[in-house]
């Protein structure tokens, strides 16, 4: 899992397998966002799950959120080599006002071997 001062986690899997990565957060958040960062690129948002949702799906992605344990997970089914990337969770401590600043976890490096 990722958060806090943990170093980057790493997972290596075979193409076609499913993978799940976890994230725990320390403070109240209205949403958890999951971002993917491919080598040499900036992060790009994959999925957003709100505090009143327990599960959110988008194509091969499934995100869950458990506000009682302050944790979230991202699952990818039927992985492809192109899913190789670092995956970040990010929380938004929005308390009103103009914007909620995102706080990013340390990331999970997923390598899909074809």
């Amino acid at each position: 899992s990722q958060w806090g001062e943990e170093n980057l986690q790493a997972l290596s899997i075979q193409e076609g397998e499913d993978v799940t990565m976890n994230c725990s957060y320390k403070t109240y958040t209205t949403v958890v966002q999951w971002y993917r960062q491919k080598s040499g690129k900036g992060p790009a948002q994959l999925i957003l799950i709100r505090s009143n949702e327990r599960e959110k799906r988008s194509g091969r992605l499934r995100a869950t959120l458990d506000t009682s344990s302050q944790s979230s997970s991202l699952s990818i089914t039927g992985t492809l080599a192109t899913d190789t990337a670092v995956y970040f969770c990010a929380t938004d401590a929005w308390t009103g006002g103009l914007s909620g600043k995102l706080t990013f976890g340390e990331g999970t490096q997923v390598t899909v071997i074809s």
Partner: protein
Amino acid sequence: EAAVTQSPRNKVAVTGGKVTLSCNQTNNHNNMYWYRQDTGHGLRLIHYSYGAGSTEKGDIPDGYKASRPSQENFSLILELATPSQTSVYFCASGETGGAPAETLYFGSGTRLTVL
């Protein structure tokens, strides 16, 4: 799709020198952000802005200044660069202000090396 462009892509600077990193977005987003990413770690917020003329301190602002002269442009300035500022810097713009669950659109990053 949202477009955020950073320049330069790579920069080598000397200790004590001044460095300016530039960011341009063409999406008319109100909010813009500067993050740094160190090897094996997540992104940490340096400065952000709610619109032209505004800058706010993020979580690690020491040693950095920011400037937002227009809706489209947001710069990060290192007045006296130090080797500890060697990192990859990402600029991002936010989809809307005033609401939670803002989606960030990131540029491709600037790799800065301070010798």
